[in-house]
């Protein structure tokens, strides 16, 4: 089984880059088995679609323009993402977002069997490489949710701090 965790967004625009922050957090704090790939899709758009195509299950993390308070996490399943307009449309004619990436992947007949989108409501989209406090807190929460899901599949994910402390 091949699993890919994709963090998308623009790291230079504060909370817009939350997906990238999450993948960095995962890479720094956990060891993943060979079945799991952590992919920083950044602003690759269509160029990053290939990373999803050979996977059986994909988790995407991205900022979403949804109703609610900054830092709130919304989960969208494959049906939500692909069939309904629950994911906001692209923000500009030049920007191809996750939705466009997934639609092209589907058109190529290579959509992964399982797909989950973790959407985080941003507070700030201003230039900056730090997350706003509410969104910063959601990073750890999402990491824990993702790791828990992987563990529930029977995969072995190790927490680096725990390993380093010799508790294994």
């Amino acid at each position: 089984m091949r699993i890919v965790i994709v963090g998308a967004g623009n790291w230079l625009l504060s909370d817009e880059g939350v997906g990238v922050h999450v993948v960095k957090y995962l890479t720094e704090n956990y060891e993943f088995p060979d079945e799991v790939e952590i992919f920083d899709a950044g602003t690759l758009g269509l160029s990053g679609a290939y990373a999803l195509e050979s996977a059986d299950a994909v988790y995407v993390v991205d900022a979403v323009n949804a109703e609610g308070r900054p830092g709130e996490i919304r989960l969208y399943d494959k049906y939500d993402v692909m069939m309904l307009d629950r994911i906001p449309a692209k923000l500009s004619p030049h920007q191809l977002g996750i939705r466009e990436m997934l639609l092209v992947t589907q058109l190529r007949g290579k959509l992964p069997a399982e797909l989950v989108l973790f959407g985080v409501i941003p507070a700030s989209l201003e230039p900056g490489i730090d997350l706003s406090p509410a969104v910063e807190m959601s990073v750890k929460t999402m990491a824990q949710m993702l790791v828990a899901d992987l563990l529930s599949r029977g995969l072995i994910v190790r927490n680096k701090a725990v390993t380093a402390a010799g508790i294994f």
Partner: protein
Amino acid sequence: MKRITIDPITRIEGHLRVNVEVDDGSVSKAWVSGQMWRGLEVILRGRDPRDAWVFAQRICGVCTTVHAIASIRSVEHALNVDVPVNAQHIRNIMIAQHSVQDHIVHFYHLCALDWVDVLSALKADPKRTAQLAEAISDWPGNGEKQFKAVKDRFGNFASNGRLGIFSSGYWGHPAMKLPPEVNLLMLSHYLQALDYQRKGAQAVAILGGKNPHIQNLCVGGVATAVNADNMATLNTERLEYLRTLMGETRDFVHKVYYPDVLLLASAYREWFKYGSGVRNYLAVPEFPQDSKSTTYDLSGGISLEGNVTAVRPIVDHRDPFLIQKVTESVAHSWYEGLSSLHPWQGETKPQYTDFREDEKYSWCKAPRLDGRAFEVGPTAQVLAAYVAGKAEVRQATDIALLKAGAKLDDLGSTMGRILARGIRARVMADLSLVYLDRLTNNLVKGDTVYANPAEIPDGEFKGVGFHEAPRGTLSHWILIRDKKIANYQAVVPSTWNASPRDDKGVAGPYEASLVGNPVAQPEKPLEVLRTLHSFDPCIACAVHMFDPSGTELVKVKVL
């Protein structure tokens, strides 16, 4: 008379606006405006010249690699630094392969949808599509089952009203002329092309370290350590992987992209009559073969007024006419004053007004060579290399012109540029592997030098780095003083082409090429997009500073 403003132009790189006046179904006047300014030239002042290429490369992520090359050459020229042959070969491979992936993206993902009606593909018979495809090429991705799968999947989308990235296209426009089977063929290839763009980008990354934005240049060579036995360097296995990837992209270009261009051109033959523009062409030589950069594989040259066979060759990057006679006018650009300065004296003093057609209306300066406007790009390079007798260019061009039913000077037109780009891509795909052979042959001979040490002396030095990039002639002009960058100006291909009017009121290539363009339905100016897209605009490259810009349709916030 109808006035149309298209803002923003999509399916390009960067931010571009066009105003046209349409009389009796065709364009009578045009103004093209670069809508964004970023300040790279200002950022570079005061920095170490050895770092210039790293910053300069960030001018654009689509035209990645090219600014790094031009920048490093400007410093090497200023300081008279030799580049070891291995480094020339490595740089040449990256340049050629970058072109391959860039042109693939441009044809399929940026310009094809001006000519291909994806909704019409839903009426195609997959079996007849396969027969058509197999008559043109032996590409294995052209089977009936594959076409049927694309048609069915896209049909599902369309019936749910979810056109995704294909929303807002001019489907059903009267200027769309392809039969359903060709539309299905092109749509299917559009989807496959994504894989080959990726392979081309990966190939460049093997040498460059990453892509976008290679990391392996240094003044005096490359930082690509070569050692056949070392896992951490460029070794035999890496070179073989590079060869495999470039073989795959070469196959795609020869068997899919190039034939598709020919098919498109023969179906839209009337578009060789539109979009000719200024009809002066400029290309610089490319692919230096020796450490002093005296011989180049592809010749450059200048031709005037549509006399495409009367090419005045440019044989190297030290041509005095070329170096001395470039000026950039700001008469109609959002900079202070009305000057026309040489890049070594160039200034970057922004002065924004709103869009004033008779005054200032663009962030692009107006580059001129000896006072004339020049078009740069694949047409210019193919013409120069063709006339100079380069065999591979002649072969690819002759086949293309025959299939498209066109003549050599038809390359100076809307469809001509698209054809020239396909020719150029084919040549680049082949040269990528030729240069890999030259690199490996040289390594086998025992020459493993890949960089000459370079120190920056005290004193004042002027340099210019030329590069014939996918969109045309690129030049970076550097003034070094007391070991720091004192001035830096980039005159890039899309500045030449997107140029506004100059101090004499002479229009730039995009503007001139739009005059006489048909416009069947002013509220759906598809034909205007056809001509603009034929140039492959890259506007991040063409303008050099940041400023807010807004439109009624979309507010683009620039940082």
